[in-house]
Structure formats: structure tokens, C-alpha cells
């Protein structure tokens, strides 16, 4: 059969066999059932039985055939699938191969393109290599690439040179062309001039006596010859005179009526100021501030003569030690009746310090004790040390002098610093070199230690300007909700009020306090960082300036005159506690001329699940903060750090303030004088003049008081002088006119002044011309 030829697969052979068997079985069954075969030979029942047996066999075979068929189909399916997979794989590989071919072709193309790329430098007409080597022999060793670069660079330089030369030549060419053109023009105009000259020559010959000006017209009358063309008849002298009168009248009205009215109505009132005096004050020519400090000696145990002697020798030693004569110490015996009686109470000087000499038996060397709460220095000495009247330089005097000198060293340095910073002080340097041995403020500044000088300079920079009233504002800021209350009343009473009371002679104070919750840092401010080593949150020193969130924290200055000094108590959030300054681990700092900040890190309340700040700050927990604040207040007010006695420091402050106010008022006077001189258009009302005279009188009063050592009175008058000086300088009505310049007025009235002015001026000019001409004619 053909099937066997087609189907060669081994797995299909059993199928074929089975199908052949089945077929045979079918044939057998058919044969058995064939009716044409004699059926009589068999019993039909038997036949049926046999048929059924055959049928069963056939069914079995059929079942087997079906199973094998199914297997074959599955097999085919499997084969197909594996074939398809194999084909896919082949396709993929084929595609990859194609891609590689493409890539190869592309790359070869690129390489070919690169190879055949024709760069400009190949076609550059460079100088030959040999010539180049002659020029630059150092290139002989370099390889061809570098050589080419060098050659190209050389070519470039050469070409630039040539190009420059070409430009210059072009310029010259242009210039020559221009020159040519000009010459041509000249020639052309020469033609014209010639033509005109010829024309004029013709006219001249036709009427030799041409009359234009009035002078020639007058001449024409005298000459008998009459003009050919009708010249105007000569003007009569009375007509000319009338015209002169008319113009003169107009100008007379303008000059004698118009200008005075204009002057009167537009002038500004300028009260006369003593400019000279004011400048002199500013230059320090009038007042030389001196600070004679009176020191009283109480010598209850010494006889009068010995005391006098001790006083004299001490004074002598002091004068020898002193290098700065503007500030000197005057010693006096407290019970010196001659001094008491000779001076009126007005001229009596304030006592700066009282020195009490107390004898003590068991002392080998004298000892000094400064009283903390009074201006008193106790000097303990043993009676044996009292100098005999003969000794010229006893050790006790030297000791007292040195002690006094030490006490007033810082004050002296401060005053020297203040004076040397200003023009007044500087003037003292130059103006009075001969009057004392060695009194330059700079000299004393040089003599003190640089650290002290630095301290003084810093304190003066930080301290507030002097004012009558200072407003103190204590604020509690916290970024969260707690603490929301503090024992502020008690704290102020306890820590701040004593300081304020001691300052009462100098300034007045008001105190406000506030509590501000939810006060966050400004969004731009640098955040504190956690420092592992200090186990604390830290702020960098440079970032402290951004600590105050000025936009959101209500730190508005107090209403009313006088500056506000702010003290900020900042309690950081529990998550950022403790908060320190990184560099110094400090928790407080001063903001110069503004106030102070204290970061208070209260113990956290650990009882609650998350630590919180205490809701109330007791007076005890506020203690460090307010002690710092009182210290900061002293610094901001400019109080010196030595000596330790507060009254002495306050006295020093009075003297320094008086000196500063004197200098500041003087320099304000100088500024005002310069201002009035440089701006002639500003008005000076009468009250400014009054203020200036008040200032000047109070300045000289201050100076007198200083000279007499009455420092309280000096401060009082210096305050008046400063206030008046500021008032005169900042007078409102002086600035108003500056902003309305004269040009504006002219612009508005130009439509009137222009058309009216032009004929007037032209008429005047004509008259003047005529007048000059007639004068010349008369002379001729």
C-alpha cells in the first residue's frame, strides 16, 4: 500500500499495524455476516454468537487504534512546536547577523569618510617645511602632528600681522580720499567767492556810497551826493532819544520794580547763624575738655602739717605719673578751710573719691581697700610709714599715687579714646603741644595695654547712644506653647531695679515685659545643629545675627521718646534643648546698640511621655537670665568694667557721657554750619537760630563745669546742648524747600518770560550798539 511508503516514521508504525489488523477484523466480520454465503450450514444463533465475538474483538482493536491515533496527534503537535521554537531562534540569530552586517557597513563607511575628509589645513598655503625649520629650529625634533600645529599657528600669526597692515593702509587711503575731497570743495568754493566778488565789485562801482547803518546814513546827509536807490530818510535825533527813553523806562520798571518784588517774594528767610563759632566748636578751638577729678583726703589721725606734706608729695608723684593732662587728679584735704571758703557753692567741684587714711599698727606695707557701695578708698598704713617732712618721695605717697592711678586708668583711657576719635580731640593734639609735657590722647592710648584699648573700643561701639529715657523690654519667646508664664515681676524687682536705681541720676527707665508663644525662627535663618560632642543643639556664632525673627516677633520699639533696649529670654523647644552657641558654649550674647539675648534651657519635665518645658518659670530659674540681663544692661549703657565699686563706675560713666555729648553736640553744630553754607537755598527759621544759640551757651557752660570738676552739672548742660543741637539740625521746615527747585518755576512761567523778554533784550542790545557807535563817531 501507498500508506506504508508515505508514513515512514517509526512512531506511526504501530498505528499502521493496528489499523491493518482492524481492517482485517472488519473483513472477517463482514464475511461472517455476509448473507450471500450459505448460512444454512450454520446455526443462525451460533452465527450471531460468532459475529458478536468478532465484533467485540473489533471494538477492542478500534479502541487501541484510537489511543494510538491520539498519541500520534500529540506527537505531531509537539514536533510542530519544537520546530517553531527552533525557527524563531534561527530568525533571531539571522536578524542579529543582519544588524551586525549593517553596523559593520556603517563603521566602514564612517572610517572611509574620516579617511577621505579634506581638512582646510591641507590646502593651506603654508611656508615649506625647510623654511619653517630655518625660522624655528627647535621644531626639528617634534613629530609631524605637533609640527603641523606649530606651522599653522605660525601661519595664523603671520596672517594676522598682514591683516593689520592692510587695515592701516586702508585707513590711510580713506584719509587721503577725504583730503582730496576737501581740496576739491575748497576749489569749488573759491570759484563761487570769485563770482560773488565780481558781483559785489559791480555793485560797488554802480553806487559807491551805499548806506546801511545809521552812522553811514548820517554821513550820507553830510555828503552832498544823493543815493541812487531810495535809502530811508535819516532818523531824527529826537526820535532816537524817545526810543531810548522808552526802552530805558521799560528796563527801569523791570530793574527797580520787577526785580525787587521778585526778590522779596521768592527769597527765603535765613536767620543768621554764628557760623564761625559753630565751626570753631566743631574743630575744638573753643573748648578743651579737661577732667580735673577732686579727691578728698580724710586724715583723722594725722596732724595737719604731716597731712599737708603727704598730700603734696602724693600730688607730686601723681603729676609725674600722669601722661594725659586733660584728665588729672586733684588732691584735697577734706577739712581744708581755705579751700572751702574761697569758692562759692557754684564753683565747688564734685568729689570723685574720698581717700581715708587709717593707721593700723601691725602692717608692714600699706594696703588699700575699695568700698563697694560708696566712693571711698581706705588706705591702711602703719604709723611708722608716715613720711617725715624732710623726705621728698616717701613710699606711702608713691603707694597712694599708684593706687589712684590704677583706679582711674580705664576711665582715663576711655576719655582719651573718646577724645581721639573726634575732631575736638584731634585738635587738642595739634593745637596745644607746648602747653603740657605729654598729653596727646593717642599717647595714653599707646601706653595702655592693647587688650584694654580693644575692650574700650568694643564697649563704646556696643553701647547705646545717650538718651534721657530708655525703655527696657523684656520678652519671653518660645517656639512652643510652654512656658507661658514667668515670675517676671519678682525677677525685675530683684535683679533689674537695683541697677536702674543706681542709674537714676543719669537716665530714666521704663520696663515692659511680654510673653510670646509660638515664636519660630525666620524661615531663612539657619537651623541649630545637633553637636554630638557637647550633646546639645548648637548655633554657629556667625548665625546669631539671624537669630531674631524681626519680621514676626513683636519687638516693636516702645512709644515715646528714647530708645528701646530689648532683652530676649528664649526657651528652645524640648526637641532642641539644650541650645548653645557652638564656639563658646555660651547661652547669651549682646546685640550691639539693640539689646541682649539669653537662651534659657530649663530642666525638661520628664514625667510626661514626651519631654516638655515647664509651664511656669519661677524666679529662681530666671535668676541666671536676669543676672546676665543686668550685666548686659550695664554694658549697653556703656558703664566701664573697672573699678569694682559701682558708684565709681557710675561717676566715670557721667564723665564719659558728658564728654561724648559735648563732642557730639559740637560736631552737630559743625555739620549744621557746613550744611547752611553748602545749601544756600534752604531756609533757616528763627527757632533754629535760637536753638543754636542755646546749644552754644550750654556747650560753653558744660566746658566751664568740666573745668571746675562739676561733672553732674556738666552732664545736665551737655544734655540740653545735645537736645537743642539735634532739634536745630533736624528742623523740619529746613528741608521742605530743597525739593522745589527754581527750574520748575521757570518752566511754568517761560511762556510769559520768553516772548516778553526777547524784544526787551533785543531792544536793549540795539540801543547799546547805537550808543557805542555814536561814542566812536564822536571820538572820531
Amino acid at each position, binding site marked *: 500500500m501507498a500508506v506504508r511508503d508515505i508514513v515512514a516514521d517509526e512512531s506511526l508504525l504501530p498505528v499502521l499495524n493496528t489499523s491493518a489488523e482492524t481492517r482485517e477484523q472488519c473483513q472477517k466480520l463482514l464475511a461472517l455476516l455476509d448473507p450471500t454465503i450459505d448460512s444454512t450450514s450454520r446455526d443462525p444463533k451460533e452465527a450471531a454468537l460468532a459475529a458478536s465475538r468478532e465484533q467485540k474483538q473489533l471494538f477492542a482493536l478500534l479502541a487501541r487504534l484510537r489511543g494510538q491515533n491520539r498519541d500520534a496527534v500529540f506527537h505531531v503537535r509537539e514536533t510542530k512546536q519544537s520546530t517553531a521554537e527552533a525557527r524563531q531562534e534561527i530568525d533571531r540569530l539571522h536578524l542579529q547577523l543582519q544588524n551586525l552586517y549593517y553596523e559593520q557597513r556603517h563603521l566602514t563607511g564612517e572610517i572611509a569618510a574620516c579617511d577621505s575628509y579634506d581638512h582646510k589645513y591641507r590646502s593651506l598655503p603654508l611656508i615649506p617645511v625647510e623654511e619653517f625649520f630655518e625660522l624655528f629650529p627647535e621644531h626639528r625634533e617634534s613629530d609631524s602632528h605637533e609640527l603641523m600645529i606649530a606651522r599653522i599657528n605660525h601661519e595664523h600669526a603671520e596672517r594676522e600681522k598682514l591683516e593689520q597692515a592692510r587695515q592701516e593702509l586702508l585707513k590711510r587711503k580713506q584719509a587721503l580720499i577725504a583730503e582730496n575731497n576737501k581740496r576739491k570743495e575748497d576749489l569749488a568754493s573759491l570759484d*563761487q567767492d570769485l*563770482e*560773488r566778488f565780481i558781483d559785489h565789485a559791480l555793485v560797488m562801482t554802480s553806487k559807491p556810497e551805499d*548806506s*546801511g*547803518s545809521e552812522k553811514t546814513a548820517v554821513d550820507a546827509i553830510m555828503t552832498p551826493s544823493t*543815493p541812487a*536807490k*531810495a*535809502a*530811508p*530818510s535819516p*532818523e531824527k535825533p529826537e*526820535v532816537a532819544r524817545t*526810543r531810548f527813553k*522808552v*526802552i530805558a523806562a*521799560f528796563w527801569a520798571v523791570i530793574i527797580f520794580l520787577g526785580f525787587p518784588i521778585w526778590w522779596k517774594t521768592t527769597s527765603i528767610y535765613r536767620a543768621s547763624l554764628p557760623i564761625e563759632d559753630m565751626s570753631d566748636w566743631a574743630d575744638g578751638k573753643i573748648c578743651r575738655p579737661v577732667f580735673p577729678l577732686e579727691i578728698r583726703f580724710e586724715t583723722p589721725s594725722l596732724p595737719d602739717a604731716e597731712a599737708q606734706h603727704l598730700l603734696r608729695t602724693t600730688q607730686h608723684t601723681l603729676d609725674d605719673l600722669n601722661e594725659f593732662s586733660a584728665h588729672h587728679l586733684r588732691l584735697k584735704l577734706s577739712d581744708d578751710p581755705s579751700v572751702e571758703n574761697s569758692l562759692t557753692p557754684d564753683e565747688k567741684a564734685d568729689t570723685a573719691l574720698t581717700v581715708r587714711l587709717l593707721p593700723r599698727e601691725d602692717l608692714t606695707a600699706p594696703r588699700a581697700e575699695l568700698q563697694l557701695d560708696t566712693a571711698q578708698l581706705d588706705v591702711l598704713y602703719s604709723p611708722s610709714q608716715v613720711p617725715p617732712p624732710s623726705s621728698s618721695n616717701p613710699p606711702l605717697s608713691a603707694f597712694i599715687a599708684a593706687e589712684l592711678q590704677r583706679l582711674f586708668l580705664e576711665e582715663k583711657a576711655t576719655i582719651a579714646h573718646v577724645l581721639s576719635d573726634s575732631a575736638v580731640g584731634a585738635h587738642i593734639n595739634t593745637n596745644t603741644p607746648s602747653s603740657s609735657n605729654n598729653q596727646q590722647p593717642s599717647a595714653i592710648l599707646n601706653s595702655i595695654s592693647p587688650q584694654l584699648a580693644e575692650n574700650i573700643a568694643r564697649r563704646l561701639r556696643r553701647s547705646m547712644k545717650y538718651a534721657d529715657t530708655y525703655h527696657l*523690654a523684656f*520678652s519671653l519667646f518660645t517656639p512652643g*506653647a*510652654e512656658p*507661658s*508664664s514667668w515670675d*517676671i*515681676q519678682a525677677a525685675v524687682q530683684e535683679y533689674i531695679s537695683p541697677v536702674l536705681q543706681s542709674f537714676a541720676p543719669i537716665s530714666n527707665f*521704663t*520696663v*515692659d*515685659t*511680654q*510673653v510670646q*508663644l*509660638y515664636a519660630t525662627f525666620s524661615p531663612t535663618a539657619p537651623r541649630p545643629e545637633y553637636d554630638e560632642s557637647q550633646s546639645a543643639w548648637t548655633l554657629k556664632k556667625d548665625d546669631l545675627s539671624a537669630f531674631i525673627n524681626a519680621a*514676626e516677633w*513683636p519687638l*516693636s520699639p*516702645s*512709644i*515715646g521718646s528714647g530708645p528701646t533696649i530689648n532683652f530676649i529670654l528664649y526657651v528652645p523647644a524640648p526637641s532642641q534643648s539644650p541650645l548653645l552657641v557652638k564656639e563658646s558654649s555660651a547661652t547669651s550674647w549682646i546685640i550691639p546698640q539693640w539689646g541682649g539675648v539669653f537662651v534659657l534651657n530649663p530642666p525638661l519635665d520628664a514625667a510626661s511621655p514626651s519631654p516638655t518645658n515647664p509651664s511656669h518659670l519661677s524666679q529662681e530659674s530666671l535668676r541666671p537670665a536676669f543676672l546676665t540681663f543686668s550685666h548686659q544692661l550695664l554694658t549697653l549703657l556703656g558703664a566701664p568694667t573697672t573699678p569694682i565699686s559701682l558708684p565709681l563706675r557710675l561717676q566715670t560713666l557721667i564723665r564719659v557721657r558728658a564728654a561724648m555729648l559735648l563732642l557730639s553736640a559740637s560736631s552737630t553744630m559743625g555739620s549744621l554750619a557746613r550744611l547752611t553754607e553748602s545749601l544756600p537755598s534752604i531756609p533757616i527759621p528763627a527757632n533754629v537760630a535760637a536753638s543754636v544759640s542755646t546749644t552754644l551757651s550750654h556747650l560753653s557752660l558744660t566746658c566751664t563745669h568740666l573745668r571746675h570738676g562739676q561733672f553732674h552739672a556738666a552732664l545736665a548742660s551737655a544734655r540740653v546742648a545735645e537736645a537743642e543741637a539735634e532739634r536745630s539740625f533736624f528742623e523740619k521746615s529746613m528741608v521742605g524747600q530743597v525739593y522745589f527747585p527754581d527750574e520748575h518755576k521757570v518752566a*511754568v*512761567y517761560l*511762556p*510769559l518770560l*520768553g*516772548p*516778553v523778554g526777547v*524784544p*526787551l533784550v533785543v*531792544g536793549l542790545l540795539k540801543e547799546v550798539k547805537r550808543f557805542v557807535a555814536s561814542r566812536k563817531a564822536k571820538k572820531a
Partner: protein
Amino acid sequence: MLARALFSLLAFVALAPLISASSDYHEKLLLQPLPQSALLASFTFQGNESQQSFDERHFRYFPRALGQILRHSNTKELHLRFTTGRWDAESWGSRPWNGSKEGGTGVELWAWIDAPSDQEAFAKWITLTQSLSGLFCASLNFVDSTRTTRPAALFDSTGDHPASSNLHLLHGTLPGEVVCTENLTPFVKLLPCKGKAGISSLLDGHKLFDASWQSMSVDVRPICPSPDECVVQIDQTVDIVLDIDRSKRPRDNPIPRPVPSEELVCDTSKPYHDYDTCYPLESAAERGWSLHEIFGRTVSGVCPLAENSEDNEPICLRVPHDRGVYVSPGATESKDETGFSRCFSLDPSQPFDLLVQEQDATVQVPLDEPVLRAERTIVGHGQERGGMRIIFDNPSDTQGVDFVYFETLPWFLRPYVHTLQATITGRDGIRHQVPASQIIRETFYRPAIDRERGTQLELAISVPAASTVTLTYDFEKAILRYTEYPPDANRGFNVAPAVIKLSQDPPVYIRTTSLLLPLPTPDFSMPYNVIILTSTVIALAFGSVFNLLVRRFVSVDEAAALTSQTLKGRLLGKIVALKDRLGGKQSKTE
């Protein structure tokens, strides 16, 4: 009546703890949906500082900035109002706080100042307005003598003042001031929690000034529960009526969009109703809203200072009890017996939001009818004269209303009081004129002085039941000086709202809207035109006269001879020569 009762209850609740504690702080928010999808939000912040620490300038609950100003200007009692918009009494009923916490449109300020004389009181008043102007970023410094009045019967001091003090009441308004965010920021800064915690965290300028009506108030007064224990009380309120639909629009996309067609509910009974034609039905259900949707924020916890106060439910909502309301976890709700109010206590550490469901309205929260309606308009035409018409409508059928009517007019509006006429219209619509004295029981009139003070008119009026009274008077408009006109002179000049005080207990205040008065305005370029025109005329006249006097007159042919020598003649010669040359050149080229 109920709403008023509630407000007085609130006021009582706010005042009650005050008696026990000397210095403390409370805050409260009341939310009440109003008809027409409006929502009234009423914020109250109250701080007390004991008089002693106020005098010693230790400020804790009281803002230091304001305290300083009050001390410096000797002000004992202060009332400051910033208001925009109009309270729609027709739909919204009577006003919150009986109108006592609102001002006229713009800024209104009145204060009791302790001063020995009127002049000194006025000087202090100027100090006060200047300082407040800086504090609140408002133009209060423009409250000068022309805008300052001393009301006779309008305001009663609500604080307890010592009998020895010599108090002066001064009142000033700025009807043209536009209240905006820059006023809110300093207002919020005065609060101890500064908008960072508690209900004040909802105060957002964007939403607040998008409201239909808005009023901020600051009241400072001393209160003495017992003679030796006084406190200074600062009461700050913000009342706003928000449009719920408008507020719910997202901030980045605030343009209203049409309802998508599938969401439209149509009135099918309309004859033209079709598949493409629709008459939209208003939804009968009450709008749903939440705090976050309306204010753009949620309440961030509780202000810790207010936490300790006895009244520990800072937020109250006034809706029927069957309305579905959901709140954030941690908050507890307590309903009251009236059936219309519930309050919430908050978890201090968690943000709080409140969601009111959209629901068909079955029960309405009753709104009480206003006792009096008032309206004031300018009538008449022309630039010279005009008239004022004030209409008082008494809706009650049984009771007459007695009240004080106060108005302050700028000096350039000169009323003729003799033309004051009254008309009564009954419910039947019949008008009949009555003598003014029948309506007006008392008059206080203080005429204006040009450029110094305005007119002050206070009338005690009684309106009979079920009738409408119309008062009219004529006025003349003054012509201002050139420099007195503001830059926007043609816009008109603001006339401050009239204030009406109903003599009840507590007094009810009603304010009319502010008016715009058009004044005759000149052409502002006039002075320059005049200067230039007159200058030209004078110059012309002068020139001709001067020339007549000075010039020499000659005949024409004489003049021709003269001209050749003058500048003009020489110039002409040159031009001729130039022409010749050009002509010559042309001939050469051709």
C-alpha cells in the same frame, strides 16, 4: 430670637469664668449655616490681664504692642472695627452679637480717653489713631478732626471705670478703607497663639476676605468684678459669612464651572422641557461641607492657654440634631436640649476637622427677624444739590420701635436740617406726611465747620408698629479747593454709614451701607492751561505795544535797501547764491 439668645448665652459663657480667674484666655468658634448656602463663622478670642500687671506693663495675655498704645494715649476703653460687605438681613435674619461687634463698611474706631480737657483728649486721640494706624496697617491716621465726632447718646461705656476719671468719647470712621489681609495679619499677631494653634489656625486671609460679609473687632475695656480686683479685657472677634459653594472651589482653580449635564436636575413640569432643554431645579438639600473645604485648613489642636478654662468646648455648630455630622477622632460631641446646637471638645494634639453631610432639610434652624430694617440712599440729581433719604421699616405688627439714629456727614456735604421731613407708610401702602416732631423725639445737631469738622446729627426716633418711616432732607455739595481733591476724585466721596442703636437690653446696633457722594470736580489741568493762556495773551499784547513804541517805520522801497544790510538780507543773499550754485551744477551735469 433663638439666635440672639444663643449669642447672649455665648457671651455669658465667655464672661462667666472671668469672675473666678484674674487673668486668662478663652476662644470660641460658632458655625451656623444660613439660607442660600451661606455659612456664618463667628470667632471669639478673649484675653484678660489683671489691671495691676497691665499698669506695671507686664503683658502676658494682652498684646504688648496694643497695651503700649493704650497707655501712651491714655485710652481706657477702645473699640475698633474692620468691616467689609453687607449683612443681608432679609435672608440671614438679625445680626450676630446684636450688631455690637461690627462696624460700618471700612474702619470704625471709638474710644474713651481719660484727659482733663477736650483739647487734650483730642490730642491723645490723634496719638491713638496714628499708633493704631501703624499697628494695624490701616489708614487710621486719616481720622482727623473732620472725621472725628463725639456721639452724645449712641454709645455707652461697657467697661467699669473709676468714678474719678474724666472720660471723653471720641468716634471716627473711614468708610473708604479697604479691609484686607494686611489688617488680618497684625490682628492675628495680637492673639497669644498667633494662628498656630487653636481655632485661630483657621484664619486664612484668602478665604476670609472672599466672604460675603466680614467683620473684625477689637474691644478693650476694664472690668471690675469687685472694686479692688480689676482686669483689662481684650475681646477680639472675627465674624464672616462665607458662600459655601464659592469657598469650596479649589484655590488653584477658582473659576466656577457649569454643572455637567448628567448631574443636572431638571424641572420636568416646564412646557419646554425636552431632552436638550432643561430648567435646572435648585437642590432642596442642604449643602454638605467640611472645615477643610471651607477654610482650606483644619483646626490644629487647641491653644494651650485656653485649655485650662472651664468651658472646654471651643467649637460649636448650629444645625438640627438629625443632621449627619462627622468629626475627627479624639473629639467628643455634646448636644444641647434646644435641638439645634452641638459643641465639640478637641484633642489638644490632633488636628480637628468637621464634616457636615449633604442632607435634605427637614427642620430649619429658626432665624429671628430683625427688629428694624434701615436703608439710606442719596437722591436727587445735578452737581449742586442732592437729598438724603432714610427708610426705617418696622416689621413688627404690634410693637413700636424706639432708637437713636446717628450720622456723621463730611463737611463738604451741607445738610439743610429745616428740610427734614417725615413720611409714614402703613401696611396698606398709603403715604402720609407727618410733622417731623411726631417721629423725632429728640435732636442733637452739631453743624459742620468747613475743613474743621463734619456734621453730627443724632436723632431719637420712634417708629410705630407695622409702618415704614421715610426721612428726607436736602443738602448742598460744597466745591473743594484744588488741592483737596483726592487722585480718584471722579469716583466720588465716601459718606460714612449711619449707626442706629435700638434701646433694648442689650442694645442692638444696625448700620446702613456707606454712600458715595459725587462732587463737582474740576478739570485738573486747568491751572496750567490758565497760566499758559494768560502768559501768551500778555506776551502778545506786550510785544505789539513794545514794537509800536520802539520800531522805526519806513516806506517799502526804503526797507528794501535796508534789508540788504541786515542779517535777514545777508541770509537771503546766501540762499540765492546757493540756488545759483545748485542750478550751475545741474546745468553742468546735464
